[in-house]
């Protein structure tokens, strides 16, 4: 097992590829040179045969397969390589059929599901094909009310177990949520969806403009900015109560809230002094501090979630917006980008990287695409993740640090996409209306 655990550690470490900087695009990746775990995950066997079971099985199998594929740490064995007989239980497994060519799987995930008395029963196993003496890595049983939603949920849980075991002890993201802005109801409102784009739900009904949702680390509240009779204010939506709850209002316009990862503080931009500046306030709305003081616009703060001792943000103090970093008390200001138009920073969960949107060559005659970049903060070396034209903006890291969700108008309309943190495996998550400013939950 240890060799699998080690593989993950190299995931982030390929940003320092020399020659990728200031060159035209060459494909680099966080997983290059690393052998991914070769995983076979045949459809779970149905132990009951009614049409209800069939539908749930289809949902379960599709969801599990999608979760494992998009995890970014597996080389999924093509179905055409599977042996003729697919196991549904341990006694049906012929490990050598799976471990040898053509499947050559390192790992085999299999199981069965059935519906009894309105309950969905799922048994799942993970076997190491190279360890015939004691192959079982994982054995799990789930029992939930037989609904489509629960079939998805159980698949997410089993996928996350596998990813946790094989991904170096980092929790999977199959049960995480995304918060975003959608205009599909006619006005910009805050919406929620699963990490894979399923279960899209409208949360707010302001009827004016709601922007910049950021969910609290415990997943109980969503802070966002909304137009009120007092101008722009930081508003708070309780996911537990399903409604807006009070939050302190300040003078001027207030927007772009960001939670510290301990849930203690919120950083945001406020124009109460007559200039837009970065402030922090406790999560209960008290104890406001101003961190910046200069003439230009200051907006879009993001905390270093590893330490909560640093904040990156966007400042127009020297002209076009650039990314800056400072200590969370406002001292020790440093500049991260030095050209173009750089906005929307998001700090990676391990504290090492900033993802942001950058129009790198800006000005007359320069290609005007806004792309997603990731910068290693210590070395200021960066890699470009999107190359597909259009305006890509508002990257947000998944809690496992392996994925980034962002908005792009590459298909004409602004929609939400996800990708691996090396820019591969892009997936479009939304299609209805226009959707923007995605924010990935902390867990």
């Amino acid at each position, binding site marked *: 097992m240890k060799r699998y655990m080690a593989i993950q550690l190299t995931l982030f470490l390929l940003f320092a590829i020399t020659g990728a900087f200031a060159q035209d695009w060459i494909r680099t990746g966080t997983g290059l040179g690393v052998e991914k775990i070769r995983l076979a995950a045949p459809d779970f066997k149905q132990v009951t045969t009614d049409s209800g079971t069939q539908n749930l099985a289809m949902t379960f199998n599709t969801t599990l397969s999608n979760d494992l594929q998009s995890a970014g740490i597996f080389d999924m064995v093509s179905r055409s390589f599977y042996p003729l007989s697919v196991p549904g239980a341990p006694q049906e497994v012929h490990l050598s059929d799976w471990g040898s060519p053509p499947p050559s799987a390192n790992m085999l995930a299999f199981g069965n599901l059935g519906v009894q008395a309105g309950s969905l029963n799922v048994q799942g196993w993970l076997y190491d094909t190279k360890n015939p003496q004691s192959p079982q890595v994982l054995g799990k049983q789930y029992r939930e009310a037989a609904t489509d939603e629960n079939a998805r949920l159980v698949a997410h849980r089993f996928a996350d177990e596998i990813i946790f075991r094989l991904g170096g002890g980092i929790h999977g993201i199959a049960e995480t949520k995304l918060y975003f802005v959608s205009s599909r109801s006619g006005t910009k409102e805050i919406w929620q969806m699963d990490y894979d784009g399923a279960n899209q739900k409208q949360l707010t009904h302001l009827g004016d403009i709601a922007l910049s949702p950021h969910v609290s680390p415990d997943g109980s509240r969503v802070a966002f900015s909304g137009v009120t009779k007092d101008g722009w204010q930081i508003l708070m939506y309780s996911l537990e109560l399903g409604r807006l709850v009070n939050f302190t209002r300040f003078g001027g316009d207030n927007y772009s809230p960001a939670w510290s990862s301990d849930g203690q503080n919120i950083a945001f931009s406020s124009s109460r002094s007559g200039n837009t500046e970065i402030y922090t306030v406790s999560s209960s709305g008290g104890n406001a501090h101003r961190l910046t003081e200069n003439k230009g616009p200051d907006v879009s703060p993001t905390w270093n979630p590893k330490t909560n001792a640093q904040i990156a943000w*966007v400042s127009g103090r020297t002209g076009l917006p650039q990314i800056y970093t400072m200590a969370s008390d406002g001292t020790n200001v440093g500049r991260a980008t030095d050209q173009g138009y750089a906005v929307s920073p998001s700090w990676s969960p391990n504290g090492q990287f900033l993802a942001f949107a950058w129009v790198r060559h800006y000005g007359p005659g320069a290609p005007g695409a806004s792309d997603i970049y990731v910068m290693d903060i210590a070395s200021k070396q960066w890699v470009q993740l999107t190359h597909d034209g259009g305006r890509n903006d508002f990257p947000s890291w998944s809690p496992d640090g392996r994925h980034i969700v962002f908005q792009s108008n590459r298909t004409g309309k602004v929609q939400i996409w996800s990708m691996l943190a090396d820019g591969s495996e892009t997936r479009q998550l939304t299609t209805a209306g226009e959707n923007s400013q995605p924010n990935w939950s902390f867990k």
Partner: protein
Amino acid sequence: MEEQLKLTRSQWFKVVVALAVVLAVSACGKKKAAPPPPPPPPSAPAPTASLTANPNALNAGQATTLIWKTDYATSVTIDQLGKVDPSGSSTVTPTESTTYHLLAKNDSGTQEATARVTVMPAPAPPPAVTSDETQAQMFAQNMKDVFFDYDSYDVTQQYQQVLAADARFLKQHPNMKFTVEGHCDERGSTEYNLALGDNRANSTKQALVSLGISGDRIRTISYGKEKPFCTESTEACWAQNRRAHFVYQR
């Protein structure tokens, strides 16, 4: 015939019979052949009537209650209300001073009654509405917006002059309060544009303050690129959207 229509219900039958006879006869002969109308019913006492308004003096927009009472009348009308019950009340909202006129009739005669309601000229509110309208119109006509260069929130020389004219107008109308809306073109990022719009609104406010306009009269808000004036992706359109827009505050 008109007189006959005023008969009470119990008398209607006789009239109908008489009419039928008239029609039957006139069908085969001339007018002269019509028999004389039936004799009038035993005469009732002449009607009595009273009409009061309570209150009888009020401001425009307020309501008053008309109360009337009649006896013996077979038909009661109030000019402004039409046919009414013999006795009753009604709420009216006259817009100007009005004399309500009641006419009670029966076969024996008619009786009139009047009630005068005096409406005071409306005090402040209604004229204020119209004056607010004109104030807003005047404001919109005179207060010229400020336009900005790309990614800039500096008020250029050209728009300093525009603001000087705006300030002259504001000094002539010291009671006017207003909002400065900061707007940006569609390029650039949503959040940065909100901040840029705030800076545009605030630099415009500061310029007016330095021209002697009290900051207490001025609110600011940024709409970033959320509420564009022009939606095409052209430089002409973008230039229209990079502005500080003045909105009269009621």
